[in-house]
């Protein structure tokens, strides 16, 4: 049963293209008001999943819904869901303004919104230019402008940073943070984990069409071998206490220990419960790429 707080529910979603299974019994939720990163390497099934969610590709099995309703059944889809799927979605002979005019009319939004979103994505000066001459970054911005046009509650962004320069990536990050602050739900896919780290509440990782994990970033890094370094005058006592909770801790000096398989919050809470003072807590976190590789490699080993 769908969670009442879920904006998006994916249930047993499967897509087969002949002998190839692009998405295989995928199940996850996107809580309302959250920003969720949808991660996986190229070919992991992210785009196919998003296209099934948006009614563009028919699932072989399962269902993908917005609050229990298929995209095609939404009363006013453009006002409920804004999507950016790929950069090459525009008629090359049409100007940016004309493109947005068409989608303003399609969603029955005032044409004044066109100027608003052009300004929001930084394309005002290029409004009268034909899209065929746009760079990939400009196309991405135009795609985002189209999605923003009707101020929907939910955003589906498929690799939105593709083609953006560093300044554009920062702008996108701020845009997503702004959407989150305004209470929007955002599902953003990426194959570059570091790009989403600063903006998402949690991540869904897929590999070869399978769900690898859905988790917060902090929990994920802990799972993947984050080491917490502690300085405390009672290092041995804390190590014993952690061991009782099944957490591996190694005393490396009389006042230092290293903890793996736990977050700093877990270690700090346990120390506080036993009134053990902590003078210093640092983390030696693996990079997000390390986390991703660790998880997908583990998943592949389990699968095979």
């Amino acid at each position: 049963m769908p969670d009442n707080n879920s904006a998006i529910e994916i249930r047993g979603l499967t897509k087969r293209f002949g002998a190839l299974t692009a998405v295989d019994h995928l199940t996850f939720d996107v809580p309302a008001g959250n920003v969720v990163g949808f991660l996986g390497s190229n070919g992991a099934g992210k785009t196919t999943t998003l296209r099934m969610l948006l009614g563009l590709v028919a699932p072989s099995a399962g269902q993908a819904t917005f609050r229990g309703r298929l995209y095609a059944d939404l009363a006013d889809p453009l006002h409920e869901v804004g999507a950016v799927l790929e950069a090459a979605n525009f008629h090359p002979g049409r100007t940016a303004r004309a493109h947005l005019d068409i989608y303003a009319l399609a969603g029955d939004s005032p044409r004044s919104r066109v100027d608003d979103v052009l300004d929001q994505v930084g394309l005002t000066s290029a409004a009268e230019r034909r899209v065929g001459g746009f760079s990939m970054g400009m196309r991405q911005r135009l795609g985002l402008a189209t999605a923003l046009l009707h101020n929907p509650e939910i955003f589906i962004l498929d690799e939105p940073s593709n083609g953006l320069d560093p300044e554009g990536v920062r702008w996108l990050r701020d845009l997503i943070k702004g959407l989150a602050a305004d209470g929007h739900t955002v599902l953003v896919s990426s194959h570059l984990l570091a790009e989403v780290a600063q903006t998402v509440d949690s991540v869904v990782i897929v590999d070869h069409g399978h769900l690898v994990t859905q988790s917060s970033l902090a929990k994920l890094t802990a799972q993947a071998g984050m080491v917490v370094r502690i300085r405390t005058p009672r290092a041995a006592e804390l190590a014993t206490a952690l061991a009782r909770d099944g957490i591996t801790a190694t005393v490396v000096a009389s006042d230092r220990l290293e903890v793996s398989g736990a977050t700093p919050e877990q270690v700090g809470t346990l120390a506080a419960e036993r009134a053990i003072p902590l003078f210093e807590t640092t983390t030696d976190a693996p990079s997000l790429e390390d986390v991703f590789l660790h998880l997908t490699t583990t998943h592949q080993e389990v699968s095979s």
Partner: protein
Amino acid sequence: MIRLVHVELLKLRTVRSTYGMLAAAALLTTLDAVLIAAQSGSSTRPPLFTAAGLRGPISTIGFALLLSWILGITVSSGEFRNRTATLTYLAAPRRGQVLAAKAIAAGFVGAVFGVVGVLLSTGVGLAFVAGDGYSVALGGTTIADYALGAVVGSALLAALGVAVGSLIRAQLGAVVAILLWGFFVESTLSNLVKGLGSYLPFTAATTLGGAPLATGGFGFPNSSSASPLPFPAVVVLLVGITAAVSALAARTTVTSDVT
């Protein structure tokens, strides 16, 4: 539905190809009509002071109709060529309605092609008649009937083009196929099988505009002795063909993945 039609009309208004095809239709229709009018009174064509002679340039609306048909094809197949189908179906997920809106919008613009074509062909014919000092051999009602037929035929072919373009998504292939069909296939079939031309869509549409059977509306020599269908029958025929192809296209469009 009305909003969807407005959206499709706005799409057509905001690309240069629409105006380019209309300009091509106007230019080719004018040249063809001038050529036919200039040849009138020769050994192959009756003189302009006769009804048959004046009918020659006035009914050379083949290019307008053919380009209207191609316009319809580009309206639907262009969505896949330019990969704009994704946004179109995100805005309007009920694909059958999108197809219907495109057919209606293309029909409107196709009618404009018909108006432009018939104004030019009739204008050329009457200008030659006036230039030669002849009286107009066709009655006003007949000329008006030809004009109405050209507009209706052009609109219906554009709508049919939308359905064809939905079935054959490779735009270049579809356009080439239609050009061959309009220029050669129907004329050849009409000349080979007596009476068949009346039931072929392009030929039937050209007869609405007054073109004799098997001339393709281009002023080709007429070797068919069969009579065209009456006006209402041609309209029913074209609407029927468009509905049948549209139904097939709708089934394909609704079930196919947009990747």
